[in-house]
């Protein structure tokens, strides 16, 4: 049986709209957040930074992300969701371009902060857009379209894995500025598709406005602690792994291959694996498993040198680090009542960002000590191991499945929730 022409015509724009929206995470997370790892060794060498100073750049980025995530709904209400989404990409693009124009440490720190803020606004508002791309009967398609949007993160990692090494190959360590510049230009080019896609989706009141009675988040305490430790552990690796590979003698295109494989693995695993696995696990088992797999992904580059270890690490780490937010969202959804979902998940995001702010700084300080950068990355291993143990303390106390009113069908006689 073949699809009718009208159905095919309807599906094509939805696919294109999701891809257009994916330009948001490409710029926000792929370029503005993660690509810094590729530039860190050259910037550190050229600008004579300590590892702590280099890590501090990502601390600044994570602090910006906290502010952006906390205010995304406000920006959306104040200027409209489309303007907030597209404006976030524009600011990210400007921050990327400006990063190419200065070697001043304070200036770059401020730009990393602004980039973190715009990343969060773009990503949060864009996620809400992506979940509204499809409307009507066959809503099951919505999950695939949101998955396509999320794959933008991996696509951004892959693209940066091509353009940054190209700049570094052409200009050596001085190419870090060209790296930012090239990503800035690509970000400017991404504004058009993103703006077009945002115009195709109905604008709606910003998510995050739902309020209800006060709810204790105490039962989720182990998950909050896990998320801080996980955030610190994974981002320490993500910040410094290219620097580690560089220190082990790997050339620019070797680290680029590593980064591209990591990006592809993250996009594929986010779409195909983790949603199913996490849904089947209860309590803290899912976050513990995610920590364990990410930890296994960190180990190869610490235990062995060479391309084989790097690729193994890229596949396992890349295929698992984005599962953390999925595990937390599923737990929050199961354990919190409906009116507390938005606020509960927002507070968990803050915990995640706090970990991401602290991790690179502490890891950088350790890397500056006698053990070198490997010592800093062993911090990732320790944090991930502790986080896995903490996650296992989490018990699941279900809030119960939420009832909807079914007037025409008659009220149920007994609910038991």
């Amino acid at each position: 049986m073949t699809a009718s022409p009208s159905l095919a015509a309807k599906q094509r724009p939805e696919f294109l709209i999701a891809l257009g929206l994916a330009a948001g995470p490409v710029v926000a997370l792929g370029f503005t957040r993660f690509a810094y790892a590729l530039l860190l060794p050259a910037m550190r060498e050229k600008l004579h930074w300590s590892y702590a100073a280099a890590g501090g750049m990502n601390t600044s980025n994570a602090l910006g992300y906290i502010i952006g995530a906390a205010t995304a709904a406000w920006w959306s209400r104040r200027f409209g969701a489309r303007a907030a989404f597209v404006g976030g990409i524009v600011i990210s693009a400007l921050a990327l371009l400006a990063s190419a124009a200065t070697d001043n440490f304070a200036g770059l720190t401020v730009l990393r902060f602004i980039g973190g803020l715009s990343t969060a606004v773009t990503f949060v508002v864009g996620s809400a857009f992506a979940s509204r791309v499809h409307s009507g009967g066959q809503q099951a398609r919505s999950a695939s379209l949101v998955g396509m949007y999320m794959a933008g993160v991996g696509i951004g990692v892959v693209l940066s894995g091509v353009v940054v090494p190209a700049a570094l190959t052409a200009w050596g360590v001085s190419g870090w500025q060209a790296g930012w510049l090239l990503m800035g230009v690509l970000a400017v080019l991404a504004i058009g598709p993103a703006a077009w896609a945002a115009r195709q989706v109905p604008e709606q009141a910003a998510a995050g406005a739902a309020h209800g009675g006060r709810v204790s988040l105490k039962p989720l305490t182990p998950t909050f602690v896990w998320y801080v430790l996980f955030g610190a552990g994974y981002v320490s690796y993500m910040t410094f792994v290219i620097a580690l590979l560089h220190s082990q003698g790997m050339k620019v295109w070797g680290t680029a291959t590593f980064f591209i494989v990591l990006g592809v693995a993250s996009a594929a695993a986010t779409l195909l694996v983790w949603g199913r696995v996490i849904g089947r696990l209860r309590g803290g088992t899912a976050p513990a498993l995610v920590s364990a797999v990410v930890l296994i992904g960190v180990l190869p580059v610490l235990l062995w040198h060479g391309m084989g270890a790097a690729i193994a690490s890229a596949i396992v780490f890349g295929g698992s680090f984005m599962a953390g937010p999925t595990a937390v969202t599923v737990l929050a959804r199961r354990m919190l009542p409906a009116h507390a979902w938005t606020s509960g998940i927002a507070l968990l995001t803050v915990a995640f960002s706090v970990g991401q702010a602290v991790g690179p700084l502490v890891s950088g300080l350790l890397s500056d000590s006698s053990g070198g950068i490997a010592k800093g990355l062993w911090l990732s291993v320790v944090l991930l191991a502790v986080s896995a143990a903490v996650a296992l303390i989490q018990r699941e106390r279900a809030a119960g499945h939420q009832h909807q009113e079914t007037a025409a069908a008659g009220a149920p006689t007994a609910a038991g929730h």
Partner: protein
Amino acid sequence: MFHRILVAVDGTAAAQRALRTTSELALLTSAKVRVLHIDTSDVVYDTVVGLEDDAAAHQLLDSAVATLRQAGVPADGELLDGLVADVAQAVQEAAKGFAADLIVVGPHHRSRLATWFSPSVSDAVAHQSRIAVLFSAAEG
């Protein structure tokens, strides 16, 4: 015999067959029936995505209850929100809440690959249930 039957419906042909089977069985045993539909959502990265339109979910449930009532079966409906991974558990909870002595489901027959992406609710209900579970016939 069965006096309180919970039938889970999801808008598929298999669910329609489950509804017909439930109707015939309830008329034979004078059972009360509760129709359960779960308005599912899924988590993609950190975003909860609704997989069904709320209005469509209400309509589906109302239609199923009306079908049973027209056949002379005393029936009501229950609509729950839940993650797609938690549907089987929600069916168990609803059966407990209704004090059901039978759960009727319409199994989907799919490839192993398809089952990986969308696990079988019927299998999970059968494995977890402490009360009788009836799978409606695949055809007819």
